[in-house]
């Protein structure tokens, strides 16, 4: 593995290796000294073209616990708004000797471009690109589910919300199916891609019918502004049909858990009561995010000794 661009690129073995490695990384959190020397002397750049404090600090904490040097490069808007181009940014990072670049970008495919353009030689981790993918989020979600549910083979996972615009949903559907789970996505038809025939999941418009058959429910953030583009009539109607509240939670099997990638719209897709309930593993997802990102950075960057030159 040189890059992590799409959850769909991971084989079952690779995904398991990341999850198992994360398990070891997580045990570190219980030790008095939380640091490993694994990436000493390596440079990890957090290249964030979009604001995402929670994802950035998660990667930052992960890299620092592995003793890597971390540079935060906040370049919000700089490429799309006639500032420095993605290419020049990449050439700059190459000149600085970045071993790994964690890229968050509003344009789908931007990390893919960084990895394939020949502008730089470092490993690229997709930290969320446009409406495409967010593979480390899917890994931490799978990790969290595995800790509660055991192996995911045959487990019934339900993903609810704005699938059309969600990079979290795309990565989760791909990864969870690789890990053997049965995935159902639930959304109003307007918030599903028009043709999902190639997706390894089933779709439903009826949340209530799916609830009793769910071992885990993942609620996606839904932007209220979507109603201005007629994706749904109103926030209230959305909540009524697709929000997870106490009544719906009661329909879940006893052991089922509730996930949310954050940040939450409390009262929109998830009620405060559910978010703060014992079934909610939302805070734990954050903890696990650091362990997963440590595992990914460790597996991509340790032991590599890059000598290749950029081609452009």
């Amino acid at each position, binding site marked *: 593995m040189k890059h992590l661009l799409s959850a769909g690129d991971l084989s079952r073995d690779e995904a398991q290796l990341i999850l198992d490695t994360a398990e070891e990384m997580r045990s570190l959190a219980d030790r008095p000294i939380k640091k490993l020397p694994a990436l000493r002397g390596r440079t990890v750049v957090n290249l964030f073209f979009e604001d995402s404090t929670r994802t950035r600090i998660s990667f930052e904490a992960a890299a620092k616990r592995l003793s890597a040097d971390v540079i935060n490069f906040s370049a919000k808007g700089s490429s799309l708004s006639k500032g420095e181009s*993605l290419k020049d940014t990449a050439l700059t990072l190459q000149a600085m000797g970045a071993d790994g670049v964690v890229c968050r970008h509003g344009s789908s495919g931007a990390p893919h*471009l960084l990895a394939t353009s020949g502008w730089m030689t470092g490993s690229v981790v997709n930290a969320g690109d446009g*409406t495409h993918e967010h593979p480390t989020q899917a890994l931490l979600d799978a990790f969290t589910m595995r800790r509660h549910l055991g192996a995911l083979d045959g487990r019934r996972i339900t993903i609810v919300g704005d699938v059309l615009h969600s990079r979290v949903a795309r990565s989760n559907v791909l990864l969870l199916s690789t890990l053997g789970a049965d995935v159902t996505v639930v959304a109003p038809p307007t918030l599903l*891609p*028009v043709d999902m025939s190639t997706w390894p999941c089933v779709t439903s418009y009826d949340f209530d019918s799916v609830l009793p058959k769910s071992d885990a429910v993942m609620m996606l953030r839904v932007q209220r502004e979507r109603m201005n583009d007629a994706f749904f009539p109103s926030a209230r109607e959305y909540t009524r049909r697709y929000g997870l509240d106490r009544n719906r939670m009661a329909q879940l099997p006893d052991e089922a858990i509730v996930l949310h990638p954050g940040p939450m719209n409390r009262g929109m897709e998830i009620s405060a009561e559910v978010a703060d309930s014992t079934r909610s593993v939302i805070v734990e997802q954050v903890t696990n995010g650091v362990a997963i990102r440590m595992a990914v950075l460790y597996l991509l960057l340790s032991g590599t000794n890059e000598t290749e030159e950029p081609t452009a």
Partner: protein
Amino acid sequence: MTAYLITGASIVGGEVADLLIDNGEIVATGTGLDAPADVTTIDAAGLIALPGLVDLHTHLREPGREDAETVFTGTRAAAQGGFTAVFAMANTDPVADTAGVVEQVWRLGRDAGYADVYPIGAVTVGRKGTQLAELGAMADSAARVRVFSDDGDCVWDAALMRRALEYVKAFEGVIAQHAQEPRLTQGAQMNEGALSGVLGLTGWPSVAEEAIIARDILLNAHVGSKLHICHLSTKGSVEIVRAAKRRGLEVTAEVTPHHLLLTEDLAASYNPVYKVNPPLRTKEDVEAVREGLADGTIDIVATDHAPHPVEDKDCEWSAAAFGMTGLETALSVVQHAMIDTKLLTWADVADRMSYAPAAIGQAADHGRPLEAGAPANIVLYDPRVERTVVPEESVSLSRNTPFEGMTLPGKVVATFLRGTPTVLDGELTR
């Protein structure tokens, strides 16, 4: 003026004959022609002679984006591709919406001398889709504009489109529509389908093209004017135009070389060289537009040559410009997609790339059969060779060809514009 005797060419792919050119005209055709003593003979054995190609849809970018292309460089690329006439799209800066701008473009074309440049006038002021531009002034100008288009944007307002169609009847104008329902394509990046959902790129649904085409055919039937559909790209569009023509409704349509050959899966590379508007579609759509071109539903091939500077393509997909170059590869792509597949004959290609576009654009000197008395606008083409497309070899200012690295058949050996060679031995003459 030098006289030329072209010997042994296959005339539009048929009989082998000689062509004698003098004083800008074809003087005689046949064998054993009585040539003047100082004639320059060109051995065209094995080559196909076609009437000079006519491109109804070219972006020359001047004025305004001379970093991407100029009238000079764009018409050089045209000549290199076998074109003797190009229709220059109006989406320049300033927009070609006044007699002044279209005359400027027309003069720049005359000064360059590589191909006749017929400026296309904008339908609306600034291509903003709210107020008719002074179509009559452009029609009456030295540029004698007959084709009007807001290409790049759709004339989406039905009332305005109706008036535009009606108004140009006074001077036999034609409205060339960029069929794209704007509300259905907000932020659109690629063809909408299974792949766009996976790649997370906003979809450009076929229906956004088809709905406008259907509407405009009906509007045009109501007012009895001339409607031309730019860069038709979907199977549904072919079916709509075919049904309309069967009912006897007036409409002409074009397809680009890239929509005859390339499919949407190229977008999976996130390489913006494959970003174009309308987007690359599915294999099914490609087959449908080929059939449409073969049976005459689609009247012509037009390149939609859309040059862009490197920095507008060497970037992330959503930030990149839409468009592909196409003048220098058009004939090769058509040979590959239509001739080598036996869907068209060379005589058909002469129609789709010369006679018919010249007729739609009312370019009287062009699109004439290779017969005595016709202006000597001729291309000599070698269909037997192959070449690998190398962007750096292009004579266009821009490098954004989607055919990079592909091996395509055929090569333009010579192009004559009114008896003067612009290309000889496969190279520009100056």
